[in-house]
């Protein structure tokens, strides 16, 4: 990796950009996900579970961009998922089932919401930022509950999955699985490129030392807002996929416990690593599913697990893997 940016000299290389050693984990991860349909052929339950995990992986990835690289604790990230889902479902409700329309509209909806709310939220720092993102998510939630034309509290059904260029490609669960996997990888590569770029370094630099960034002539606000908009758009895409998976979207998708869950995924995997967010998402979805099979009171077990993760898992699963492989 050759660095021409003067900023790079002050930061160690491994965390930034294309580092092939570090790509070993994501490569194994994506390869593993790619062979799942071969290991569990026709097992609709397992496929749909992993599809759900991958969709949350996309959402967690987008949160990791602002959380891990910008130190912006968004407690309203679930709102973007809900918005993306509603965008897809409402379009279908009005007869537009085309994914090539619905998905970009979903992304644009999330990005626009992020632009407006981010412009206000990013004026604040720390706990105020946490609270104001939460407040905006609550607004989105209450707006959704009041949309009586689109189901209100009860949510909105989708008649079928989105069609792609008119073809019923996503109707088949295995196809849908691979489309989600493809989008997960695409989002990962996009975000990897972004955080490795000059833009990503400025974002990280502003997290570590805002004053120095200002002194260097960068306005952190603009970079943070851009990152926030990108994260909002990607998260909304995951929402559109989630609506396609369950053929349903509801205000409950935007509640703050869901945002908390997304934070838990990023922290469990390891903040600021991207692939860690995916691993965290898969881990938490599978643990939730597994606990829910054992007892209906699975949250009473899951809650303490989250507490233990917060207290002990500094650096998350990725740090554990790194330690295990002697790095």
């Amino acid at each position, binding site marked *: 990796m050759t660095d021409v940016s003067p900023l790079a000299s002050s930061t160690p290389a491994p965390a930034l950009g294309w580092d092939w050693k570090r790509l070993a984990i994501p490569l194994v991860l994506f390869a593993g996900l790619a062979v799942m349909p071969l290991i569990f052929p026709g097992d609709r339950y397992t496929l749909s579970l992993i599809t759900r995990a991958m969709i949350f992986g996309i959402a967690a990835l987008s949160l990791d961009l602002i*959380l891990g690289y910008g130190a912006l*604790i968004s*407690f309203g990230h679930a709102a973007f998922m809900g918005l993306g889902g509603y965008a897809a479902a409402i379009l279908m409700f009005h007869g537009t089932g085309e994914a090539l329309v619905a998905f970009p509209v979903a992304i644009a909806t999330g990005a626009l919401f992020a632009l407006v709310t981010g412009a*206000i939220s990013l*004026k*604040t*720092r*720390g*706990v*105020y930022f*946490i*609270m*104001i993102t*939460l*407040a*905006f998510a*609550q*607004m989105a939630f*209450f*707006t959704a*509950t*009041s949309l*009586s034309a689109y189901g209100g509290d009860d949510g909105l059904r989708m008649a079928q999955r989105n069609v792609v260029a008119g073809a019923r490609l996503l109707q088949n669960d295995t196809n849908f699985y691979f489309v989600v996997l493809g989008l997960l990888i695409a989002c990962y590569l996009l975000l990897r490129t972004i955080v490795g770029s000059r833009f990503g370094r400025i974002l990280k630099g502003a997290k570590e030392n805002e004053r120095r960034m200002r002194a260097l002539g960068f306005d952190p606000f603009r970079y943070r807002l851009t990152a926030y908009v990108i994260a909002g758009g990607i998260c909304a895409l995951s929402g559109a996929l989630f609506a396609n998976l369950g053929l349903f979207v509801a205000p409950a998708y935007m509640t*703050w*416990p869901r945002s*908390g869950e997304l*934070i*838990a995924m990023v*922290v469990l995997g390891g*903040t600021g690593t991207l692939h860690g967010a995916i691993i965290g998402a898969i881990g938490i979805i599978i643990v939730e599913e597994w606990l829910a099979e054992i007892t209906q*009171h*699975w*949250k*009473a077990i*899951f*809650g*303490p*697990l*989250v*507490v*233990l*993760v*917060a*207290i002990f898992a500094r650096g998350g699963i990725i740090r554990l893997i790194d330690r295990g492989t002697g790095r």
Partner: protein
Amino acid sequence: MSSTLLIIQTLNGLQLGVLLFLIAAGLTLVFGVMDFINLAHGVQYMLGAYLAAMFVAWTGNFFIGLVLALISALAFGLLLEVLVMRHLYDRDHLEQVLATFGVILFLNEGVKIVWGAAPLQVPVPDMLSGAVAIADGVLYPIWRLAIILSGLAVALGLYLVVTKTRVGMLIRAGATNAPMVSALGVDIRRLFMIVFGFGAMLAGFAGCMAAPVLSVEPGMGDNLLILAFVVIVIGGIGSIRGAFIGALIVGLTDTLLRSFSVDLLRMTGLSPSDARTIGPAIASMSIYILMAAVLFFRPTGLFPAKG
């Protein structure tokens, strides 16, 4: 929009306001003194309500039940501090948010295991049941007045403790500059433990008082926690005065707009059906819009404790 309804809804707004203050006071002190974000504060309110339901049913007397519930809420708060919170003082907000989120999941489910998922009812104590005429032909439940008065009494007591006593002085100093207080030889962790336990008890007290009015059910603290956060963000973190004023603003805004938003919109010339659609949405969003507006102009709230 009749004046009778306006009086009643204003009182209801005050009642929500004092409940919010009881919750926000503990929350804001915990945050102010220790820079600690305790999302689990709302479930401590819920727990107070459940404890009240249990002890009132056991003893058959509301006031004995109330005292027992308060003692248990205090003990539980201290236990939580020892088990979870104290491991997270020096850590990021991120880890505090996550850990206390885990506590919420556990307790919301825990009360379902212990008391069942069905809502519980707590009877209003006999001597405070019934209604009283507060104006010509306007009847108001005595219990709701009791909530308002007890909340105001606690607010006054808290004000005196915080401004007139040595512990209060340390709390104020801690909220302004905790490291400095610590450097002066004060055991800030013990001070915090007191504040945390006391905050848990205040939240529990709010739960006890609300129990006869609301149904006691899992998750009842979640929405109130969010409201309490709105309160302290509007009021300014770490400030008791800010929490009090913020709580009254939020309680009144929320309650009054929920009752009158449709009428108000119709007065602006909107068609009745449009007003009925938009009104409730605006009412539920109003306090969040208010909070965003306050933060936009005053990013640290109306009365920030930290200079």
